[in-house]
């Protein structure tokens, strides 16, 4: 009898597990329409439902932290926010395909969806929630303090391979790059170099900023680039065309290597997504969490930039 019971339980478990599997695949697409409006005792309308934000790992720490605060807020206690990483490409694919409600991205959707997919970018609505700036970092032993745009281009395209050619000591340059599809690398290429960098023989590519920092800090003659939030004493930051990579210089537009952090929705956001996005750009979040985690609040920017890279004051 025990055996039968055991087997029956096992069968039930397997079946329910299998059901879970299929539910996981299709279910995530259904989150978009479950924004119900309940009337609470207070008379005010409270939102309830769930929200999935997926994408950029550069933005993930911020969204993660803010989502926890958001859910803890009694006003939004009925909303569950799920945050997933996966990269900007994943975020844009998922929001465009309807699997996620919000797609986090480091770059404009227009830059990712090209050619045949260009229509997909038009369906997405952009919500800029923060600005992330990047600085060129080198190993601490490097004596160079400043690199011009041309010198950077020469280094990242392999024309210059020794630090002595840009005013430093006689030391081979080791490039620590991000993968060619990474949003951070695209930003760096577009605004610091103005051209594509190459995956050179002997260069290093790492996908996580932590590893990039570790390799730059430890490899003699290494050069790389990091978001401000990752920079600490273990690496040395370089001036870009004489401009110090600092928040003050970013907000005035003097330091050009920065990008918006986007949260895309497919069409206009539903009530839940709107509540969350409004929360993201609220003064409170922008002045605490955003600054705390090393991003720059969007409101602080004195210049604006569109997908084509045109800057307006």
């Amino acid at each position, binding site marked *: 009898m025990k055996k039968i019971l055991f087997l029956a339980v096992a069968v039930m478990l397997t079946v329910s597990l299998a059901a879970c599997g299929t539910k996981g695949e299709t279910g995530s697409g259904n989150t978009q329409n479950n924004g119900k409006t309940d009337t609470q005792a207070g008379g005010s309308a409270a939102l309830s439902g769930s929200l999935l934000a997926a994408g950029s790992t550069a933005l993930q720490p911020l969204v993660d932290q803010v989502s926890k605060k958001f859910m803890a807020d009694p006003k939004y206690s009925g909303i569950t926010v799920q945050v997933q990483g996966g990269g900007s490409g994943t975020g*844009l694919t998922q929001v465009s395909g309807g699997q996620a409600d919000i797609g986090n991205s480091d770059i404009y959707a227009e830059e990712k969806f090209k050619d045949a997919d260009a229509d997909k970018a038009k369906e997405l609505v952009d919500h800029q929630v923060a600005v992330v700036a990047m600085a060129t970092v080198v190993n601490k032993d490097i004596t160079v303090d400043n690199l011009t745009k041309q010198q950077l281009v020469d280094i990242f395209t392999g024309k210059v391979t020794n630090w002595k050619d840009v005013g430093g000591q006689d030391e081979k340059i080791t490039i620590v790059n991000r*993968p060619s599809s990474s949003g951070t690398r695209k930003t760096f290429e577009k605004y610091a170099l103005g051209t594509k960098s190459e995956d050179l023989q002997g260069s*290093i*590519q790492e996908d996580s900023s932590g590893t990039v920092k570790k390799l730059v800090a430890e490899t003699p003659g290494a050069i790389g680039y990091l978001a401000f939030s990752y920079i600490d004493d273990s690496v040395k930051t370089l001036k870009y065309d004489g401009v110090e990579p600092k928040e003050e210089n970013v907000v005035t537009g003097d330091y050009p290597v920065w990008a918006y952090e986007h949260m895309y929705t497919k069409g206009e956001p539903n009530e839940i997504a709107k509540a969350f996005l409004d929360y993201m750009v609220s003064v409170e979040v922008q002045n605490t969490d955003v600054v705390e985690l090393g991003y720059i609040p969007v409101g602080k920017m004195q210049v604006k930039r569109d997908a084509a890279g045109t800057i307006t004051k």
Partner: protein
Amino acid sequence: MYRPAEGEQPLHQRLQKKHAKPHIMEEWVGKVYTTLCILVLVVTIVAIVYFVASRGLSTFLVNGVSLSGLLTGLKWDPEGDIPLFGALPFIFGSFSTSLLAALIAAPLGCCAAIFMTQIMPGFGRRVLQPVIELLAGIPSVVYGFVGLTVIVPLLRSTFPGQGIGIAAGALVLSVMILPTITTIATDALASLPFGLKEGSYALGATRWQTIYRIVIPTTLPSLLTGVVLGMSRAFGEALAVQMVIGNAPHIPHSLFESASTLTSAITLGMGNTVMGSAHNNALWSLALILLLMTFVFVFVVRFLERRNKR
């Protein structure tokens, strides 16, 4: 004489029925349960193979990349103005790291197994084997980080080059595949036919002579099975290798220069590409190559096992 009442079955039949019923139930439940499990398994496997193949093949069918171009091309630049999909550097990197890792780990694992079964079975099997098996439980990101903090600086200060590269990857992998090789080798050696060793000792052979003339040749196919399984694990490992190998899409000039593997190319690119784009499809093609290589490894293991039985 007792006569059964009308409609009542004979005693032995009644008894039989009482016993047979739960028995049939058990049989039936067991059958259904195992069949269900197998069905789920088969569907999963077929679905995975189909998915990877359909994605991977669209590189050739939709994006018009030639198979030979992918397999022999030296330049990987899928985001370039003229996209180039040369995966040979990745294939080279994958093969060289896993071969080198097997080369390092095979003697270590086999010797550990010989020690644990032939030389000091008590201490070996009770203490050493669990310790070695513990290595399998360590997450690969930890291996990668240890490799990055210990092995890479060590190689960099000892050899010319950046330290990262195939050598670092192979060293990290060799530790990771050690438990696989050791466990399989230990099982093979422990199941050696009784009497072979005794016969050898009876002829006056020493323990060492017995080990390398009798024990190793008899169990060689099983030992090789372990090595091949270890290699296939090394071939598929992504995270740890990605952290220490450097990931430059080129065939390196030395063991201490940045190289890339199939898995690291996939992990670096997959999250940042949009599903259905040429770059994304090319990554699925790399995954397909990995899948096919795993099939090859499985066939090799099967072949070795068949030889072992004969």
